[in-house]
């Protein structure tokens, strides 16, 4: 009787033992794969990575260096991924997958000279404006929460415009275009026409 009882128990023990070993391996492998994946993704989320390509370093980065998000009184900065990559894991992953298109164009050399970049500037800017508009300027609002804006502390002009803009249901990017990079040609009816650039699209009437 005792033998009969012992046998299935030892078999069960063996299965359980083997299972826990497999589970432990899977657990460790999971940590390594998951952690490695996230670490790799975070490595590609740094300013140094972004300006690793001369396309970024010599065009948009140079322009960004003159703005308040690069250098300011208190040293609180917003670097490339703070504005251009969502913070939440899911949207971040989707954006990273979309970036494979950017790798393709890096290989094709679509914007590998300043001339080529400027020729494409309007299109590239429009993509970013559309993305920001779609998410209600989510990346701006990671830091700038307008529910907590103190209009008394704001300048005369910004206080008036913010209250008016929010009242009309506008989002940050509706007015704050070209704050970190140079704008594409915007038609302002001065001198020769800047063919093909709709002013209203870039700067909606305020």
């Amino acid at each position: 009787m005792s033998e009969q009882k012992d046998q299935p128990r030892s078999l069960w023990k063996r299965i359980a033992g083997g299972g826990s070993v497999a589970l432990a391996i899977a657990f460790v492998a999971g940590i390594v794969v998951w952690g490695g994946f996230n670490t790799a993704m975070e490595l590609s989320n740094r300013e140094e990575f972004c300006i690793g390509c001369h396309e970024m370093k010599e065009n948009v980065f140079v322009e960004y260096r003159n703005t308040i998000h690069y250098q300011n009184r208190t040293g609180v900065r917003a670097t490339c991924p703070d504005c251009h990559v969502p913070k939440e894991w899911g949207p971040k992953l989707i954006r990273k997958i979309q970036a494979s298109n950017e790798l393709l164009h890096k290989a094709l050399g679509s914007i590998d000279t300043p001339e080529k970049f400027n020729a494409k500037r309007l299109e590239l800017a429009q993509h970013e404006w559309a993305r920001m508009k779609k998410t209600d300027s989510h990346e701006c609002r990671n830091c700038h929460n307008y529910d907590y804006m103190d209009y008394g502390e704001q300048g005369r002009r910004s206080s008036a415009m913010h209250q008016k803009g929010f009242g009309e249901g506008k989002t940050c990017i509706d007015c704050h275009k070209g704050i970190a990079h140079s704008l594409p040609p915007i038609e302002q009816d001065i001198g020769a026409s800047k063919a093909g650039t709709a002013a209203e699209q870039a700067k909606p009437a305020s």
Partner: protein
Amino acid sequence: MKTTLTLLLACLFLGSAPLRAAEEFRPIKLQSLRGDTPVDKTNEAEMFKQEKDRAPLPRDFVQQPPLIPHSIRGYNITANFNKCMDCHAWSKARQANATKVSLTHFKDRDGKELANISPRRYFCTQCHVPQTDAKPLVGNTFEKAETLKPQ
């Protein structure tokens, strides 16, 4: 001072001839506003504070381009876009409660009147400048034009 001392010591050992030679070839000390900074280096920029937003400043002479009474940090004037026109263009000025661009800016170089500012007046900051808390580098006796002094 140190060089003089070294030279003197050297003269004690070597006689007076080298002293005369050193005097003859001593370079004349010239200093411009950039000081001792070599040509291939840039002076460190002094820290000036941009003045706070305020009402338009009165002019000191009649032809003076009005000063900019607000910060223009990050306001780009490039071939693509002129940020100033966001408020100072005639179509925006009333809404923005800003000063309109003067009508004198609407004439092209042939004297033809245009419907907007002339391209030759495009670069606002060539004449209009904001103010900082910088002190004058040298003294001056400039006085406001008589006709602009409050009566």
